[in-house]
């Protein structure tokens, strides 16, 4: 294991440990420690990415197992802690994600300095951020499935801890629990997939697996692929496990930006990209359909939300669906590209919303906002760039990645394309809706009227991310090592026919969405105009197809009832039958014995004579000889 890689992982770990043990009371120093750690991670990552020798892939002939530290060894089963930066085909997915994680992570750390300045639990927050960075870097760099699983769970733990930051509220307490448990359901499938992979392929190391599959592609099975994809479904909040992400907005906004927009939820897509050689075409088409469906569904849900963070959360769900669809079409490079651009513009918009929430005294309802364009110019303008990017306005970063996905879908899978295209129109529609309502018009509540621009420690990252969102789509501006992950599949897509047509459609989509939402939401009061104009549609979207209700029903009525029934059964039958039952058997014997105590002389005499007769009969041999 490379020294630099080891240090990279050690830095956030040490930072978290230091904060936990020594700096619990001292929030300010804790924040500086954490931000410094994030900065160091960024520098180290850049060094790793851009140096030529940062590979820990051994010479051919050595076993992979020799290159890492053996973490656990029982009988023949070994878990080796091996990390690697690039893979044999030099696709550099890990470098790309490493860049995104460390860069966006650093910016969000800096932003948090401003956002959490007045928070009492600052130390806990920054400790959690450090643990998150540690776990996320682990996922990025790990080379075997067991190691990925370990860090996968740790990322889930960091998410739990950070969502529960405002733990005195019921909302945060429930949301953190929900997030962890729903993630666990995904991990359940993931775990089974890992175990089966080990026994069927003989290894869990990704490099070895890709070599095995390269030599014999027919060995992939849909079952294992889908089992491993359960981890993705849980972590990236796809059907049916998407319910935790909107609730996770109960955490502080920078957490939502970092974990639930830019990085952790992207880990699922990253996992898929890493194990893509294990996927059969059935598994791929399943994922494509799943992703496309989520892309559209989440758009409808976002359409009727009032909370600015919830809108962004559903938008994240939708974009993750796009990434999944891209992967399912066989274009994982395009999926990763969209992951990167999404990290930029979604991170930007979340931080922007954080800036808004912070200066409006934690007001999150967009129908109480308005006119922020004039009061918070930097925030509003950067936010606008984010909205333009996600809507696919030409030549911004989101345009390039989304256009590639749509073009690929148009050529490879027409139904998926139709769904995704409708989703694109919807995306522009609801994102512009957010902009018109929150930033334009007149302020609709007192706090908002008094809002002022956030300090530069918060607007700085906004500007940087805005630049990236605007120009991050141009291939020429990317360093080659980083772009290598996206390069091949993007060129495949650009070679496909229908490109002009796609440009036209794409432009139409965002223009229609922008103008349409301007029409509807240009002048709003405190209520959503859609409620009067199209009540049925509103209700349908608001219900989110009753996923939350169904799960709640399951948990309270079915699961708890079953648990109670089993408890009663247990007390009745097992306890009662076996424990008291055995006592009962003893009691039965005693009852029989008791019945012989007649208390009457004749009874005794009778039994005495019966006994004598029996004895004589035995002596006479009537009961057989012994």
């Amino acid at each position, binding site marked *: 294991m490379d020294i630099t890689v080891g240090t990279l992982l050690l830095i956030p770990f040490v930072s978290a440990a230091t904060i936990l043990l020594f700096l619990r009371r001292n929030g300010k120093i804790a924040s500086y420690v954490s931000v410094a750690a994030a900065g160091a991670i960024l520098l180290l990552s850049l060094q790793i990415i851009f140096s030529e020798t940062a590979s820990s892939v051994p010479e051919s002939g050595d076993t992979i197992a020799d290159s890492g530290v053996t973490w656990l060894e029982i009988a023949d089963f070994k878990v080796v802690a091996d990390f690697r930066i690039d893979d044999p085909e030099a696709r550099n997915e890990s470098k790309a994600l490493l860049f995104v994680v460390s860069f966006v992570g650093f910016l969000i750390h800096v932003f948090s300095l401003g956002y959490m300045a007045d928070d009492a639990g600052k130390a806990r927050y920054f400790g959690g951020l450090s643990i998150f960075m540690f776990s996320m870097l682990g996922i990025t760099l790990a080379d075997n499935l067991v190691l990925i699983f370990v860090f996968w769970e740790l990322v889930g733990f960091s998410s739990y801890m950070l969502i529960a930051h405002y733990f005195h509220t019921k909302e945060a307490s429930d949301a953190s629990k929900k997030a962890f448990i729903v993630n666990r359901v995904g991990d359940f499938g993931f775990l089974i997939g890992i175990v089966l992979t080990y026994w069927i392929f003989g290894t869990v190391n990704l490099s070895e697996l890709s070599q095995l599959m390269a030599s014999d592609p027919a060995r992939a099975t849909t079952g294992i692929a889908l089992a491993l994809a359960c981890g993705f479904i849980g972590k990236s909040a796809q059907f049916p496990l998407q319910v935790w992400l909107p609730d996770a907005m109960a955490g502080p906004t920078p957490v939502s930006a970092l974990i639930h927009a830019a990085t952790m939820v992207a880990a699922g897509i990253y996992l898929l990209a890493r194990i893509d050689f294990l996927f059969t075409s059935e598994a791929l088409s399943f994922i494509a359909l799943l992703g496309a469906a989520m892309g559209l569904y989440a758009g409808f849900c976002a359409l009727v939300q009032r909370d600015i963070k919830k809108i962004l959360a559903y938008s994240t769900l939708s974009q993750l669906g796009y990434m999944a669809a891209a992967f399912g079409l066989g274009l994982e490079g395009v999926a990763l590209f969209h992951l990167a651009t999404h990290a930029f513009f979604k991170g930007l918009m979340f931080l922007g919303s954080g800036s808004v929430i912070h200066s409006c005294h934690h007001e999150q309802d967009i129908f109480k906002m308005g006119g922020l364009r004039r009061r918070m110019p930097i925030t509003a303008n950067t936010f606008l760039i984010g909205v333009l990017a996600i809507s696919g306005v030409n030549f911004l970063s989101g345009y390039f990645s989304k256009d590639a996905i749509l073009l690929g879908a148009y050529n490879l899978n027409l139904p998926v394309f139709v769904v995704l295209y409708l989703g694109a129109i919807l995306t522009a529609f609801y994102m512009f809706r957010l902009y018109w309502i929150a930033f334009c018009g007149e302020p609709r509540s007192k706090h908002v009227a008094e809002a002022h621009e956030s300090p530069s420690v918060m607007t700085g990252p906004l500007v940087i991310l805005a630049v990236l969102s605007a120009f991050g789509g141009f291939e020429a501006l990317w360093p080659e090592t980083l772009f290598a992950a996206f390069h091949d599949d993007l060129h495949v897509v650009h070679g496909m026919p229908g490109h002009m047509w796609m440009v036209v459609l794409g432009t139409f989509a965002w223009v229609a969405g922008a103008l349409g939402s301007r029409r509807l939401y240009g002048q709003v009061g405190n209520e959503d105009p859609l409620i009067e104009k199209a009540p049925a549609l509103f209700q349908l979207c608001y219900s989110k197809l009753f996923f939350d209700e169904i799960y709640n029903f399951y948990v309270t009525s079915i699961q708890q009832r079953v648990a109670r029934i089993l408890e009663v059964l247990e007390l009745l039958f097992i306890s009662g039958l076996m424990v008291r039952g055995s006592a009962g058997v003893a009691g039965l014997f005693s009852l029989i014995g*008791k019945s012989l*105590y*007649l*208390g*009457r*002389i*004749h009874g005794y*005499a*009778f039994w005495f*004579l019966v006994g004598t007769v029996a004895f004589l009969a035995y002596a006479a041999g009537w009961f057989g000889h012994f």
Partner: protein
Amino acid sequence: MDTIGVQDFLIVSVLLFSVGFLGVVLRRNLLLVLMSLELMLNAVNVALVAFSRHSANMDGSLFVFFIMTVAAAEVSVGLALLVALYKKRQSVFSEHLTMLKN
């Protein structure tokens, strides 16, 4: 005329024994139970004497003496107990003497 053989004495003995047996089991009055007991013992005596005569062996007759002695002793003890019990319970019927029940 045939000689009276052992079987005839045994039949008498069995009859006497069964009368006594039924008396012990069925009678309610404890005095009569004691008498029936005596009857059973004497039935056994008859059988023993008959066997003794038949096989010209003195052992049987000697045993009869033992039985008679023991029977006498036992009857006196039993009657004494019964009298004491009567003084307590004013009854010699078995259905009134159930203190040991349960």
